[in-house]
């Protein structure tokens, strides 16, 4: 299977926990025989989405901005398992992961379709996918974590994920996450 890992941690010391989780995820996925594509958006030249919708209405499937987002879009189109890693920012995702995710709309279609009773955009690249979302927090924060898990669930509906797991790692170093990453990957494989 194809595994896409997006490490949304900052490049500086604040991203250390995310880097450890991302390394554990990549090692585990490779060890299980998967092809891994890994990106760290904070170090990549990815401009913010302009909200121009040219990727739907003018040149469907490609973004008006030519930059480092394109390899992520290619990998996303082919991915079976998505692994997103990010510092928890007010319960949501950090800006580095989010700038990459904001630019994924070329990979969906403009039209509305109904999914789980709600309007969503159909996928341009239909595939059974699983979504694993891992957040890092220095210390536990129940409300921020509730928001984070809810958000991952909303993303799962948007992506038509067939299996979604979310986890918040505490302690700032990401140690001890390898076991949980293994369980999450196994759950994804089982669903796919």
């Amino acid at each position: 299977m194809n595994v896409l890992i997006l490490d949304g941690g900052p490049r500086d010391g604040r991203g250390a926990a995310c880097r450890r989780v991302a390394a554990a995820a990549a090692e585990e996925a490779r060890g299980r025989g998967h092809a891994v594509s890994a990106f760290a958006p904070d170090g990549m030249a990815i401009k913010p989405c302009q909200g121009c919708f040219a990727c739907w209405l003018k040149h469907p499937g490609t973004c008006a901005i030519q930059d480092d987002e394109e390899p992520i879009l290619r990998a996303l189109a082919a991915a079976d398992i998505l692994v997103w890693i990010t510092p928890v920012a007010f319960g949501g995702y950090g800006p580095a992961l989010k700038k990459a995710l904001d630019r994924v709309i070329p990979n969906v279609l403009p039209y509305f379709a109904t999914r789980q009773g709600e309007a969503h955009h159909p996928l341009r690249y239909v595939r059974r996918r699983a979504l694993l979302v891992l957040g890092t927090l220095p210390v536990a924060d129940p409300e921020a974590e509730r928001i984070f898990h809810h958000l991952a669930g909303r993303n799962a509906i948007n992506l038509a994920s067939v299996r979604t797991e979310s986890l918040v790692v505490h302690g700032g170093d990401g140690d001890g996450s390898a076991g949980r990453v293994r369980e999450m990957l196994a759950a994804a494989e089982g669903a796919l």
Partner: protein
Amino acid sequence: MKALLIIGSPRGKASASRALGGHLLRRLEAGGLEVEEMSVAAVLGSSERRHDLYRATDAADILIVAFPLYVDQLPAPLIQTLELLAERRRGAMGMTPWPGPLVQRLVAIVQCGFPETHQNRPAVDIMRQFAKEAGFRWAGGLALGMGGAVGGRSLEKAGGMLRNVVAALDKTAKSLIAGGDVPDKATAMMAKPLMPRWFYHAAANWGFRNQLKKHGARKKAFDRPYA
């Protein structure tokens, strides 16, 4: 009293977020408040504008953040801006969460193109959590579905379809001027569908097809360049 509007849409002045936040701001101005607005895109564009944001935020009694829903939450540049504000306020006290008195009020306005208002819920929750972490008094969120029907036009010229939206913003302004929060009734009015769901759905899909045709891209609509 002073009110600051932060526009979180990359489309800036042409955005539905600005139309909504701008309407509230004008009502506050009519009620005697000093008002100012800034766009996130401009703030992140230069250190000078960032300092303008810090100055304006420090001086504001009411902070209004208006933005579109991007992938179920805030657009990336807005998250970055809120992180800058929160880090600065934490740094000022060397503590987290913010221990100071919660004097400044924070209002969030979020709109999405989907017909269901509840798709905005994580974004409103994130804004409330930001208020908690950065030391603002959470005054409430106004969430709107079917944001595509608002566009970037003035709400005064939009007619009856947006009457509940205008009424919600007007009620909110009245309450904020009186020192209150976003009234529950305003939140409920803003959440009301602007039209039947099936109609919005059909109109949006018709609009997408029309735009594709206009740009000569209708036959490419389902292209898969990365397949």
